[in-house]
Protein backbone atom coordinates (compact mmCIF):
# COMPACT_ATOMS: atom_id res chain seq x y z
CA UNK A 1 0.00 0.00 0.00
CA UNK A 2 2.61 2.55 1.06
CA UNK A 3 5.12 1.54 -1.64
CA UNK A 4 2.31 1.76 -4.17
CA UNK A 5 1.50 5.24 -2.94
CA UNK A 6 5.14 6.21 -3.39
CA UNK A 7 5.17 4.73 -6.84
CA UNK A 8 2.10 6.73 -7.79
CA UNK A 9 3.77 9.97 -6.75
CA UNK A 10 6.96 9.07 -8.61
CA UNK A 11 5.08 8.29 -11.82
CA UNK A 12 3.08 11.52 -11.55
CA UNK A 13 6.22 13.54 -10.87
CA UNK A 14 8.11 11.91 -13.72
CA UNK A 15 5.24 12.57 -16.12
CA UNK A 16 5.13 16.19 -15.11
CA UNK A 17 8.84 16.62 -15.73
CA UNK A 18 9.22 14.52 -18.84
CA UNK A 19 6.58 16.66 -20.44
CA UNK A 20 8.04 19.11 -22.93
CA UNK A 21 7.93 22.70 -21.71
CA UNK A 22 8.30 23.86 -18.13
CA UNK A 23 6.55 26.90 -16.61
CA UNK A 24 9.43 29.22 -17.50
CA UNK A 25 9.21 28.16 -21.13
CA UNK A 26 5.47 28.72 -21.01
CA UNK A 27 6.25 32.24 -19.83
CA UNK A 28 8.62 32.68 -22.72
CA UNK A 29 5.88 31.86 -25.18
CA UNK A 30 3.80 34.65 -23.74
CA UNK A 31 6.64 37.13 -23.77
CA UNK A 32 9.16 36.55 -26.57
CA UNK A 33 11.42 39.39 -25.38
CA UNK A 34 12.07 37.84 -21.97
CA UNK A 35 15.81 37.91 -21.15
CA UNK A 36 17.97 34.95 -20.17
CA UNK A 37 18.38 36.52 -16.76
CA UNK A 38 14.65 36.66 -16.18
CA UNK A 39 14.29 33.04 -17.26
CA UNK A 40 16.87 32.10 -14.62
CA UNK A 41 14.94 34.08 -12.03
CA UNK A 42 11.71 32.34 -12.97
CA UNK A 43 13.43 28.97 -12.83
CA UNK A 44 14.77 29.59 -9.36
CA UNK A 45 11.38 30.98 -8.29
CA UNK A 46 9.72 27.69 -9.25
CA UNK A 47 12.69 25.70 -7.90
CA UNK A 48 13.40 24.29 -11.35
CA UNK A 49 17.15 24.95 -11.04
CA UNK A 50 17.48 22.36 -8.25
CA UNK A 51 18.29 18.70 -8.95
CA UNK A 52 15.25 16.52 -9.72
CA UNK A 53 15.58 14.60 -6.46
CA UNK A 54 15.37 17.84 -4.46
CA UNK A 55 12.40 18.97 -6.52
CA UNK A 56 10.66 15.66 -5.98
CA UNK A 57 11.26 15.80 -2.24
CA UNK A 58 9.85 19.33 -2.03
CA UNK A 59 6.83 18.38 -4.10
CA UNK A 60 6.24 15.30 -1.93
CA UNK A 61 6.49 17.34 1.28
CA UNK A 62 3.81 19.67 0.00
CA UNK A 63 1.75 16.73 -1.21
CA UNK A 64 1.60 15.32 2.33
CA UNK A 65 -0.16 18.53 3.35
CA UNK A 66 -2.49 18.06 0.36
CA UNK A 67 -0.85 21.09 -1.23
CA UNK A 68 -0.86 20.53 -4.97
CA UNK A 69 0.14 24.09 -5.73
CA UNK A 70 -1.93 26.72 -7.47
CA UNK A 71 -3.81 26.35 -10.71
CA UNK A 72 -2.31 28.00 -13.80
CA UNK A 73 -5.71 29.40 -14.71
CA UNK A 74 -6.62 33.06 -14.34
CA UNK A 75 -8.04 32.65 -10.81
CA UNK A 76 -4.84 30.78 -9.70
CA UNK A 77 -6.68 29.20 -6.78
CA UNK A 78 -5.17 26.26 -4.89
CA UNK A 79 -5.64 23.05 -6.84
CA UNK A 80 -6.96 21.24 -3.79
CA UNK A 81 -9.82 23.74 -3.34
CA UNK A 82 -10.83 23.37 -6.96
CA UNK A 83 -10.86 19.59 -6.67
CA UNK A 84 -12.67 19.62 -3.31
CA UNK A 85 -15.65 21.52 -4.69
CA UNK A 86 -15.93 19.24 -7.73
CA UNK A 87 -15.30 15.86 -6.12
CA UNK A 88 -18.66 15.27 -4.32
CA UNK A 89 -20.79 15.21 -7.50
CA UNK A 90 -18.42 12.76 -9.14
CA UNK A 91 -18.34 10.52 -6.09
CA UNK A 92 -22.13 10.62 -5.84
CA UNK A 93 -22.61 9.62 -9.46
CA UNK A 94 -20.09 6.79 -9.16
CA UNK A 95 -21.45 5.48 -5.86
CA UNK A 96 -24.99 5.51 -7.23
CA UNK A 97 -23.75 3.77 -10.38
CA UNK A 98 -22.09 1.05 -8.29
CA UNK A 99 -25.27 0.57 -6.25
CA UNK A 100 -27.30 0.34 -9.45
CA UNK A 101 -24.84 -2.19 -10.87
CA UNK A 102 -25.08 -4.36 -7.76
CA UNK A 103 -28.86 -4.10 -7.53
CA UNK A 104 -29.41 -5.13 -11.14
CA UNK A 105 -26.43 -7.31 -12.08
CA UNK A 106 -26.54 -9.75 -9.18
CA UNK A 107 -30.15 -10.89 -9.68
CA UNK A 108 -29.61 -11.10 -13.44
CA UNK A 109 -26.40 -13.11 -13.07
CA UNK A 110 -27.97 -15.49 -10.57
CA UNK A 111 -31.07 -15.99 -12.68
CA UNK A 112 -28.96 -16.64 -15.80
CA UNK A 113 -26.87 -19.22 -13.96
CA UNK A 114 -29.82 -20.99 -12.36
CA UNK A 115 -31.63 -21.18 -15.69
CA UNK A 116 -28.51 -21.83 -17.76
CA UNK A 117 -29.08 -22.06 -21.54
CA UNK A 118 -32.70 -20.98 -21.22
CA UNK A 119 -34.02 -18.30 -23.59
CA UNK A 120 -33.69 -15.71 -20.85
CA UNK A 121 -30.06 -16.67 -20.32
CA UNK A 122 -29.33 -16.44 -24.05
CA UNK A 123 -30.96 -13.04 -24.37
CA UNK A 124 -28.98 -11.83 -21.37
CA UNK A 125 -25.75 -13.10 -22.94
CA UNK A 126 -26.45 -11.12 -26.10
CA UNK A 127 -27.32 -8.03 -24.07
CA UNK A 128 -24.11 -8.42 -22.09
CA UNK A 129 -22.06 -8.42 -25.29
CA UNK A 130 -23.89 -5.34 -26.52
CA UNK A 131 -23.37 -3.69 -23.14
CA UNK A 132 -19.63 -4.32 -23.41
CA UNK A 133 -19.44 -2.88 -26.89
CA UNK A 134 -21.68 0.15 -26.51
CA UNK A 135 -19.76 3.43 -26.26
CA UNK A 136 -21.08 5.05 -23.08
CA UNK A 137 -21.18 8.53 -24.59
CA UNK A 138 -23.19 7.28 -27.53
CA UNK A 139 -25.69 5.60 -25.23
CA UNK A 140 -25.83 8.92 -23.41
CA UNK A 141 -26.52 10.76 -26.67
CA UNK A 142 -29.27 8.31 -27.60
CA UNK A 143 -30.89 8.67 -24.17
CA UNK A 144 -30.64 12.44 -24.50
CA UNK A 145 -32.39 12.33 -27.87
CA UNK A 146 -35.01 9.83 -26.72
CA UNK A 147 -35.82 10.77 -23.14
CA UNK A 148 -34.67 14.37 -23.25
CA UNK A 149 -35.39 15.88 -26.64
CA UNK A 150 -38.25 13.78 -28.01
CA UNK A 151 -40.16 12.79 -24.89
CA UNK A 152 -38.99 15.69 -22.76
CA UNK A 153 -39.03 13.51 -19.63
CA UNK A 154 -35.57 14.26 -18.30
CA UNK A 155 -33.29 17.28 -18.43
CA UNK A 156 -30.25 16.76 -20.67
CA UNK A 157 -27.59 18.87 -19.01
CA UNK A 158 -26.29 20.18 -15.71
CA UNK A 159 -27.36 19.04 -12.26
CA UNK A 160 -29.86 21.79 -11.42
CA UNK A 161 -32.76 23.37 -13.24
CA UNK A 162 -32.85 27.07 -13.87
CA UNK A 163 -34.06 28.79 -10.71
CA UNK A 164 -33.53 25.79 -8.42
CA UNK A 165 -32.53 28.13 -5.57
CA UNK A 166 -36.17 29.12 -5.23
CA UNK A 167 -37.43 25.56 -4.83
CA UNK A 168 -38.28 24.03 -1.46
CA UNK A 169 -36.26 21.14 -0.07
CA UNK A 170 -38.20 18.27 -1.66
CA UNK A 171 -38.47 19.93 -5.04
CA UNK A 172 -34.71 20.37 -5.01
CA UNK A 173 -34.12 16.70 -4.29
CA UNK A 174 -36.53 15.72 -7.02
CA UNK A 175 -34.78 18.11 -9.40
CA UNK A 176 -31.37 16.62 -8.53
CA UNK A 177 -32.59 13.05 -9.01
CA UNK A 178 -34.03 13.94 -12.41
CA UNK A 179 -30.73 15.45 -13.48
CA UNK A 180 -28.60 12.58 -12.21
CA UNK A 181 -30.72 9.75 -13.64
CA UNK A 182 -29.14 9.66 -17.10
CA UNK A 183 -25.51 10.18 -16.00
CA UNK A 184 -25.81 7.38 -13.43
CA UNK A 185 -27.50 5.06 -15.92
CA UNK A 186 -24.82 5.68 -18.53
CA UNK A 187 -21.97 5.30 -16.03
CA UNK A 188 -23.38 1.97 -14.94
CA UNK A 189 -23.87 0.32 -18.33
CA UNK A 190 -20.41 -1.22 -18.86
CA UNK A 191 -20.21 -2.32 -15.24
CA UNK A 192 -23.67 -3.83 -15.49
CA UNK A 193 -22.62 -6.02 -18.38
CA UNK A 194 -19.36 -7.09 -16.76
CA UNK A 195 -20.82 -7.73 -13.35
CA UNK A 196 -23.78 -9.80 -14.47
CA UNK A 197 -21.49 -11.93 -16.63
CA UNK A 198 -19.09 -12.37 -13.74
CA UNK A 199 -21.92 -13.21 -11.35
CA UNK A 200 -23.27 -15.80 -13.75
CA UNK A 201 -19.97 -17.62 -14.17
CA UNK A 202 -19.20 -17.39 -10.44
CA UNK A 203 -22.58 -18.88 -9.63
CA UNK A 204 -22.15 -21.66 -12.20
CA UNK A 205 -18.80 -22.54 -10.72
CA UNK A 206 -20.08 -22.65 -7.15
CA UNK A 207 -23.11 -24.74 -8.10
CA UNK A 208 -20.75 -27.41 -9.38
CA UNK A 209 -18.67 -27.40 -6.19
CA UNK A 210 -18.48 -30.45 -3.95
CA UNK A 211 -20.14 -28.87 -0.94
CA UNK A 212 -23.23 -28.07 -3.00
CA UNK A 213 -23.43 -31.67 -4.18
CA UNK A 214 -23.09 -32.74 -0.55
CA UNK A 215 -25.86 -30.38 0.49
CA UNK A 216 -28.10 -31.79 -2.27
CA UNK A 217 -27.33 -35.33 -1.16
CA UNK A 218 -28.25 -34.40 2.38
CA UNK A 219 -31.65 -33.22 1.13
CA UNK A 220 -31.28 -29.48 1.63
CA UNK A 221 -34.09 -27.82 -0.36
CA UNK A 222 -32.99 -26.53 -3.78
CA UNK A 223 -34.06 -22.93 -3.12
CA UNK A 224 -32.00 -22.88 0.06
CA UNK A 225 -29.02 -24.31 -1.81
CA UNK A 226 -29.28 -21.73 -4.57
CA UNK A 227 -30.08 -18.57 -2.72
CA UNK A 228 -28.30 -19.17 0.57
CA UNK A 229 -25.34 -21.50 0.14
CA UNK A 230 -24.33 -20.89 -3.46
CA UNK A 231 -25.18 -17.21 -3.63
CA UNK A 232 -23.11 -16.38 -0.54
CA UNK A 233 -20.01 -17.97 -2.03
CA UNK A 234 -20.56 -16.58 -5.51
CA UNK A 235 -20.84 -13.07 -4.07
CA UNK A 236 -17.27 -13.09 -2.74
CA UNK A 237 -15.39 -12.41 -6.00
CA UNK A 238 -17.81 -9.57 -6.73
CA UNK A 239 -16.10 -7.56 -4.01
CA UNK A 240 -12.76 -7.80 -5.79
CA UNK A 241 -14.32 -6.97 -9.14
CA UNK A 242 -15.92 -3.87 -7.63
CA UNK A 243 -12.51 -2.73 -6.43
CA UNK A 244 -11.06 -3.33 -9.88
CA UNK A 245 -13.85 -1.42 -11.62
CA UNK A 246 -13.17 1.83 -9.77
CA UNK A 247 -10.46 3.21 -12.13
CA UNK A 248 -12.77 2.65 -15.09
CA UNK A 249 -15.63 4.44 -13.38
CA UNK A 250 -13.48 7.40 -12.38
CA UNK A 251 -11.87 7.58 -15.81
CA UNK A 252 -15.24 7.34 -17.49
CA UNK A 253 -16.52 10.31 -15.53
CA UNK A 254 -14.57 12.62 -17.86
CA UNK A 255 -16.70 11.68 -20.85
CA UNK A 256 -19.97 11.41 -18.97
CA UNK A 257 -19.60 14.70 -17.16
CA UNK A 258 -18.58 16.41 -20.36
CA UNK A 259 -21.57 14.93 -22.17
CA UNK A 260 -24.13 15.87 -19.53
CA UNK A 261 -22.38 19.10 -18.46
CA UNK A 262 -22.08 17.85 -14.89
CA UNK A 263 -19.77 20.13 -12.88
CA UNK A 264 -17.68 17.33 -11.41
CA UNK A 265 -14.04 16.30 -11.25
CA UNK A 266 -14.13 14.75 -14.73
CA UNK A 267 -15.23 18.00 -16.29
CA UNK A 268 -12.63 19.90 -14.29
CA UNK A 269 -9.99 17.51 -15.57
CA UNK A 270 -11.14 17.96 -19.15
CA UNK A 271 -10.94 21.73 -18.83
CA UNK A 272 -7.51 21.41 -17.22
CA UNK A 273 -6.31 19.29 -20.13
CA UNK A 274 -7.61 21.79 -22.69
CA UNK A 275 -5.91 24.73 -20.96
CA UNK A 276 -2.74 22.75 -20.10
CA UNK A 277 -3.16 23.52 -16.42
CA UNK A 278 -0.38 21.15 -15.30
CA UNK A 279 -0.73 21.50 -11.48
CA UNK A 280 -4.44 20.76 -11.77
CA UNK A 281 -3.84 17.83 -14.13
CA UNK A 282 -1.27 16.30 -11.81
CA UNK A 283 -3.42 16.93 -8.74
CA UNK A 284 -6.44 15.18 -10.23
CA UNK A 285 -4.33 12.32 -11.58
CA UNK A 286 -2.82 11.71 -8.14
CA UNK A 287 -6.23 11.95 -6.44
CA UNK A 288 -7.75 9.59 -8.99
CA UNK A 289 -4.99 7.06 -8.35
CA UNK A 290 -5.31 7.42 -4.58
CA UNK A 291 -9.08 6.92 -4.82
CA UNK A 292 -8.43 3.75 -6.81
CA UNK A 293 -5.95 2.56 -4.21
CA UNK A 294 -8.45 3.29 -1.42
CA UNK A 295 -11.12 1.41 -3.34
CA UNK A 296 -8.85 -1.62 -3.67
CA UNK A 297 -7.95 -1.44 0.01
CA UNK A 298 -11.64 -1.26 0.94
CA UNK A 299 -12.28 -4.25 -1.29
CA UNK A 300 -9.49 -6.22 0.40
CA UNK A 301 -10.82 -5.37 3.86
CA UNK A 302 -14.36 -6.24 2.85
CA UNK A 303 -13.15 -9.52 1.37
CA UNK A 304 -11.33 -10.44 4.56
CA UNK A 305 -14.45 -9.53 6.54
CA UNK A 306 -16.68 -11.65 4.33
CA UNK A 307 -14.40 -14.64 3.89
CA UNK A 308 -13.30 -16.34 7.14
CA UNK A 309 -10.63 -18.33 5.26
CA UNK A 310 -8.73 -15.14 4.54
CA UNK A 311 -9.47 -13.53 7.89
CA UNK A 312 -7.87 -16.42 9.76
CA UNK A 313 -4.90 -16.52 7.45
CA UNK A 314 -5.60 -20.08 6.30
CA UNK A 315 -5.11 -21.28 2.78
CA UNK A 316 -8.10 -20.53 0.56
Amino acid sequence: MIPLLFGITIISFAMMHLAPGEPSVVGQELNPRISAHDIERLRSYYGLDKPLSVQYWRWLKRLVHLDFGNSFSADSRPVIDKIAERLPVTLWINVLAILLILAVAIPIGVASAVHQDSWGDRIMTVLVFVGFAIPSFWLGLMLMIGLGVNLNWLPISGIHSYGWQHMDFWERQRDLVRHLTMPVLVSAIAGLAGMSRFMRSGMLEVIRADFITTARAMGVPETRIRYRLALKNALLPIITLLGLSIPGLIGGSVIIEQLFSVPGMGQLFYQAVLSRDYPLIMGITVIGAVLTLLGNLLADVAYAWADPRIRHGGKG
Partner: protein
Amino acid sequence: MTRSQAALAFCRRHPMLVAGGIIVGTVSLLALLAPWLAPYDPTDINVKAILLPPSWQHWCGTDTLGRDVFSRMLYGARVSLAVGFVAVGIAMLIGILLGAVAGYGGKLADSLIMRWTDMVLCFPTFFLILAVIAFLKPSIWNIMIVIGLTSWMGVARLVRAEFLSLRQREFVLAARATGIPAVRIIGRHLLPNAMGPILVSAILGVAGAVLVESGLSFLGLGVQPPNPSWGNILTEGKDNIQIAWWLSLYPGLAILVTVLGYNLLGEGLRDYFDPKMSGRP
Protein backbone atom coordinates in the same frame (compact mmCIF):
# COMPACT_ATOMS: atom_id res chain seq x y z
CA MET B 1 -19.36 -35.37 -44.29
CA THR B 2 -19.24 -32.94 -47.18
CA ARG B 3 -17.34 -29.71 -46.96
CA SER B 4 -20.46 -27.56 -46.56
CA GLN B 5 -21.76 -29.82 -43.81
CA ALA B 6 -18.44 -29.49 -42.01
CA ALA B 7 -18.62 -25.73 -42.36
CA LEU B 8 -22.14 -25.72 -40.95
CA ALA B 9 -21.05 -27.86 -38.02
CA PHE B 10 -18.20 -25.46 -37.34
CA CYS B 11 -20.63 -22.53 -37.31
CA ARG B 12 -22.90 -24.41 -34.90
CA ARG B 13 -20.04 -25.20 -32.57
CA HIS B 14 -18.41 -21.77 -32.63
CA PRO B 15 -21.19 -19.25 -33.29
CA MET B 16 -19.29 -16.38 -31.61
CA LEU B 17 -16.13 -17.00 -33.61
CA VAL B 18 -18.05 -17.08 -36.89
CA ALA B 19 -20.23 -14.06 -36.14
CA GLY B 20 -17.22 -12.07 -34.92
CA GLY B 21 -15.19 -13.10 -37.95
CA ILE B 22 -17.93 -12.01 -40.35
CA ILE B 23 -18.35 -8.62 -38.64
CA VAL B 24 -14.62 -7.97 -38.42
CA GLY B 25 -14.09 -9.07 -42.00
CA THR B 26 -16.88 -6.84 -43.30
CA VAL B 27 -15.75 -3.78 -41.36
CA SER B 28 -12.13 -4.28 -42.45
CA LEU B 29 -13.20 -4.64 -46.06
CA LEU B 30 -15.32 -1.49 -45.90
CA ALA B 31 -12.38 0.38 -44.41
CA LEU B 32 -9.92 -0.91 -46.98
CA LEU B 33 -12.21 -0.13 -49.92
CA ALA B 34 -13.34 3.25 -48.56
CA PRO B 35 -11.90 5.31 -51.47
CA TRP B 36 -13.85 3.16 -53.99
CA LEU B 37 -17.03 2.74 -51.95
CA ALA B 38 -17.49 6.28 -50.66
CA PRO B 39 -20.06 8.10 -52.82
CA TYR B 40 -18.58 11.52 -51.91
CA ASP B 41 -15.26 12.99 -50.87
CA PRO B 42 -15.31 12.85 -47.03
CA THR B 43 -13.98 16.40 -46.69
CA ASP B 44 -15.98 17.94 -49.53
CA ILE B 45 -17.92 20.90 -48.17
CA ASN B 46 -21.27 21.57 -49.81
CA VAL B 47 -23.13 24.60 -48.49
CA LYS B 48 -26.25 23.66 -50.45
CA ALA B 49 -26.61 20.38 -48.56
CA ILE B 50 -26.22 21.31 -44.89
CA LEU B 51 -27.76 18.99 -42.27
CA LEU B 52 -29.87 16.97 -44.70
CA PRO B 53 -31.61 13.96 -43.13
CA PRO B 54 -30.83 10.50 -44.53
CA SER B 55 -32.07 10.04 -48.10
CA TRP B 56 -31.14 8.09 -51.24
CA GLN B 57 -28.52 10.71 -52.11
CA HIS B 58 -27.02 10.77 -48.61
CA TRP B 59 -27.59 7.41 -46.90
CA CYS B 60 -26.67 8.70 -43.46
CA GLY B 61 -27.50 12.37 -44.03
CA THR B 62 -25.07 15.28 -44.12
CA ASP B 63 -23.32 17.26 -41.40
CA THR B 64 -23.12 20.97 -40.56
CA LEU B 65 -20.79 21.62 -43.50
CA GLY B 66 -22.83 19.57 -45.95
CA ARG B 67 -20.36 16.68 -45.96
CA ASP B 68 -21.72 13.20 -46.61
CA VAL B 69 -21.85 11.33 -43.28
CA PHE B 70 -21.74 7.87 -44.89
CA SER B 71 -18.50 8.69 -46.72
CA ARG B 72 -17.03 10.17 -43.56
CA MET B 73 -17.94 7.04 -41.65
CA LEU B 74 -16.20 4.83 -44.22
CA TYR B 75 -13.02 6.85 -43.84
CA GLY B 76 -13.57 6.96 -40.07
CA ALA B 77 -13.44 3.16 -40.09
CA ARG B 78 -9.89 3.38 -41.46
CA VAL B 79 -8.89 5.72 -38.65
CA SER B 80 -10.47 3.60 -35.92
CA LEU B 81 -8.99 0.34 -37.15
CA ALA B 82 -5.55 1.86 -37.75
CA VAL B 83 -5.49 3.30 -34.24
CA GLY B 84 -6.73 -0.01 -32.85
CA PHE B 85 -4.09 -2.10 -34.60
CA VAL B 86 -1.08 0.15 -34.02
CA ALA B 87 -1.99 0.85 -30.38
CA VAL B 88 -2.48 -2.85 -29.68
CA GLY B 89 0.77 -3.62 -31.49
CA ILE B 90 2.65 -1.26 -29.19
CA ALA B 91 0.87 -2.61 -26.11
CA MET B 92 1.64 -6.19 -27.13
CA LEU B 93 5.31 -5.39 -27.70
CA ILE B 94 5.72 -3.81 -24.25
CA GLY B 95 3.50 -6.34 -22.51
CA ILE B 96 5.16 -9.40 -24.00
CA LEU B 97 8.63 -8.04 -23.32
CA LEU B 98 7.92 -7.15 -19.68
CA GLY B 99 5.85 -10.28 -19.12
CA ALA B 100 8.58 -12.49 -20.55
CA VAL B 101 11.27 -10.95 -18.37
CA ALA B 102 9.02 -11.18 -15.30
CA GLY B 103 8.00 -14.75 -16.01
CA TYR B 104 11.39 -16.11 -16.97
CA GLY B 105 13.94 -13.71 -15.51
CA GLY B 106 13.88 -14.77 -11.89
CA LYS B 107 12.40 -13.53 -8.64
CA LEU B 108 13.87 -10.03 -8.53
CA ALA B 109 12.90 -9.04 -12.08
CA ASP B 110 9.48 -10.56 -11.49
CA SER B 111 8.69 -8.63 -8.34
CA LEU B 112 10.08 -5.36 -9.75
CA ILE B 113 8.09 -5.58 -12.95
CA MET B 114 4.91 -6.72 -11.27
CA ARG B 115 5.06 -3.92 -8.66
CA TRP B 116 5.50 -1.48 -11.53
CA THR B 117 2.52 -2.99 -13.31
CA ASP B 118 0.38 -2.72 -10.17
CA MET B 119 1.37 0.91 -9.84
CA VAL B 120 0.41 1.81 -13.39
CA LEU B 121 -2.88 -0.07 -12.93
CA CYS B 122 -3.77 2.29 -10.07
CA PHE B 123 -4.11 5.20 -12.45
CA PRO B 124 -7.46 5.47 -14.13
CA THR B 125 -6.30 4.74 -17.70
CA PHE B 126 -8.42 7.42 -19.25
CA PHE B 127 -6.93 10.04 -16.90
CA LEU B 128 -3.44 8.90 -17.79
CA ILE B 129 -4.19 9.08 -21.51
CA LEU B 130 -5.73 12.54 -21.21
CA ALA B 131 -2.84 13.81 -19.08
CA VAL B 132 -0.30 12.69 -21.67
CA ILE B 133 -2.40 14.06 -24.55
CA ALA B 134 -2.37 17.39 -22.72
CA PHE B 135 1.43 17.44 -22.91
CA LEU B 136 1.66 16.29 -26.48
CA LYS B 137 -0.52 17.55 -29.28
CA PRO B 138 -3.59 15.52 -30.17
CA SER B 139 -2.85 13.74 -33.43
CA ILE B 140 -3.53 10.28 -34.74
CA TRP B 141 0.08 9.16 -34.12
CA ASN B 142 0.18 10.45 -30.57
CA ILE B 143 -3.10 8.72 -29.81
CA MET B 144 -1.81 5.40 -31.07
CA ILE B 145 1.32 5.73 -28.96
CA VAL B 146 -0.48 6.88 -25.84
CA ILE B 147 -3.16 4.19 -25.96
CA GLY B 148 -0.42 1.63 -26.55
CA LEU B 149 1.68 2.91 -23.66
CA THR B 150 -1.27 2.73 -21.26
CA SER B 151 -2.75 -0.64 -22.13
CA TRP B 152 0.09 -3.17 -21.89
CA MET B 153 -0.58 -4.18 -18.28
CA GLY B 154 -3.06 -6.96 -18.98
CA VAL B 155 -0.79 -8.61 -21.55
CA ALA B 156 2.23 -8.35 -19.26
CA ARG B 157 0.35 -10.15 -16.49
CA LEU B 158 -0.97 -12.75 -18.88
CA VAL B 159 2.41 -13.52 -20.45
CA ARG B 160 4.02 -13.70 -17.04
CA ALA B 161 1.42 -16.16 -15.75
CA GLU B 162 1.73 -18.32 -18.88
CA PHE B 163 5.53 -18.33 -18.67
CA LEU B 164 5.56 -19.15 -14.98
CA SER B 165 3.48 -22.26 -15.59
CA LEU B 166 5.23 -23.21 -18.85
CA ARG B 167 8.74 -22.98 -17.46
CA GLN B 168 8.04 -25.90 -15.13
CA ARG B 169 6.98 -28.19 -17.98
CA GLU B 170 9.24 -31.04 -19.06
CA PHE B 171 9.99 -29.82 -22.57
CA VAL B 172 11.20 -26.49 -21.25
CA LEU B 173 13.26 -28.11 -18.51
CA ALA B 174 14.76 -30.42 -21.13
CA ALA B 175 15.62 -27.48 -23.38
CA ARG B 176 17.27 -25.71 -20.47
CA ALA B 177 19.21 -28.82 -19.50
CA THR B 178 20.71 -29.01 -23.00
CA GLY B 179 22.03 -25.48 -22.56
CA ILE B 180 19.86 -23.60 -25.06
CA PRO B 181 20.09 -19.86 -24.31
CA ALA B 182 17.13 -18.25 -22.55
CA VAL B 183 16.22 -15.96 -25.45
CA ARG B 184 15.92 -18.98 -27.75
CA ILE B 185 13.85 -20.91 -25.23
CA ILE B 186 11.49 -17.96 -24.90
CA GLY B 187 11.23 -17.47 -28.65
CA ARG B 188 11.03 -21.11 -29.66
CA HIS B 189 9.22 -22.82 -26.79
CA LEU B 190 7.48 -20.40 -24.46
CA LEU B 191 6.01 -17.76 -26.76
CA PRO B 192 4.51 -20.16 -29.33
CA ASN B 193 2.80 -22.04 -26.52
CA ALA B 194 1.40 -18.84 -25.03
CA MET B 195 0.30 -17.49 -28.42
CA GLY B 196 -3.38 -18.44 -28.05
CA PRO B 197 -4.17 -16.32 -24.99
CA ILE B 198 -1.96 -13.50 -26.32
CA LEU B 199 -3.88 -13.45 -29.61
CA VAL B 200 -7.20 -13.41 -27.74
CA SER B 201 -6.09 -10.52 -25.59
CA ALA B 202 -4.78 -8.64 -28.65
CA ILE B 203 -8.12 -8.96 -30.42
CA LEU B 204 -10.04 -7.87 -27.33
CA GLY B 205 -7.49 -5.06 -27.05
CA VAL B 206 -8.41 -3.76 -30.52
CA ALA B 207 -12.01 -3.47 -29.33
CA GLY B 208 -10.89 -1.50 -26.29
CA ALA B 209 -8.62 0.78 -28.32
CA VAL B 210 -11.41 1.55 -30.80
CA LEU B 211 -13.63 2.57 -27.88
CA VAL B 212 -10.93 4.76 -26.34
CA GLU B 213 -10.10 6.42 -29.65
CA SER B 214 -13.74 7.24 -30.30
CA GLY B 215 -14.06 8.62 -26.77
CA LEU B 216 -10.98 10.81 -27.20
CA SER B 217 -12.11 12.05 -30.59
CA PHE B 218 -15.55 12.73 -29.12
CA LEU B 219 -13.88 14.97 -26.52
CA GLY B 220 -12.01 16.73 -29.31
CA LEU B 221 -8.67 15.37 -28.09
CA GLY B 222 -8.35 12.64 -30.67
CA VAL B 223 -8.43 12.74 -34.43
CA GLN B 224 -8.73 16.39 -35.41
CA PRO B 225 -11.26 17.69 -37.93
CA PRO B 226 -11.47 17.89 -40.91
CA ASN B 227 -10.16 14.31 -40.77
CA PRO B 228 -13.20 12.12 -40.18
CA SER B 229 -13.46 9.80 -37.20
CA TRP B 230 -16.50 8.14 -35.67
CA GLY B 231 -15.84 10.00 -32.45
CA ASN B 232 -15.65 13.48 -33.94
CA ILE B 233 -18.80 12.98 -36.02
CA LEU B 234 -20.52 12.20 -32.72
CA THR B 235 -19.25 15.49 -31.29
CA GLU B 236 -21.15 17.29 -34.05
CA GLY B 237 -24.08 15.07 -33.23
CA LYS B 238 -24.01 16.27 -29.66
CA ASP B 239 -23.83 19.90 -30.71
CA ASN B 240 -26.84 19.44 -32.99
CA ILE B 241 -28.72 16.99 -30.83
CA GLN B 242 -32.01 18.87 -31.07
CA ILE B 243 -32.13 18.91 -34.87
CA ALA B 244 -29.93 16.19 -36.40
CA TRP B 245 -30.34 12.76 -34.82
CA TRP B 246 -28.59 11.04 -37.75
CA LEU B 247 -25.27 12.61 -36.80
CA SER B 248 -25.47 10.77 -33.48
CA LEU B 249 -27.13 7.50 -34.44
CA TYR B 250 -25.01 6.07 -37.26
CA PRO B 251 -21.41 6.64 -36.12
CA GLY B 252 -22.32 5.20 -32.71
CA LEU B 253 -23.83 2.13 -34.34
CA ALA B 254 -20.62 1.74 -36.34
CA ILE B 255 -18.54 1.80 -33.15
CA LEU B 256 -20.94 -0.58 -31.43
CA VAL B 257 -20.90 -3.13 -34.27
CA THR B 258 -17.12 -2.97 -34.71
CA VAL B 259 -16.37 -3.35 -31.02
CA LEU B 260 -18.97 -6.11 -30.76
CA GLY B 261 -17.33 -7.90 -33.69
CA TYR B 262 -13.87 -7.83 -32.13
CA ASN B 263 -15.22 -8.90 -28.74
CA LEU B 264 -17.10 -11.82 -30.30
CA LEU B 265 -14.05 -12.84 -32.32
CA GLY B 266 -11.84 -12.67 -29.22
CA GLU B 267 -14.23 -14.62 -27.00
CA GLY B 268 -14.89 -17.09 -29.79
CA LEU B 269 -11.16 -17.70 -30.24
CA ARG B 270 -10.78 -18.18 -26.51
CA ASP B 271 -13.41 -20.92 -26.60
CA TYR B 272 -11.82 -22.40 -29.70
CA PHE B 273 -8.38 -22.62 -28.09
CA ASP B 274 -9.61 -23.75 -24.71
CA PRO B 275 -13.11 -25.25 -24.67
CA LYS B 276 -12.84 -25.87 -20.92
CA MET B 277 -12.99 -22.15 -20.29
CA SER B 278 -16.25 -21.58 -22.19
CA GLY B 279 -18.92 -19.73 -20.30
CA ARG B 280 -16.37 -17.57 -18.51
CA PRO B 281 -16.54 -13.80 -18.77
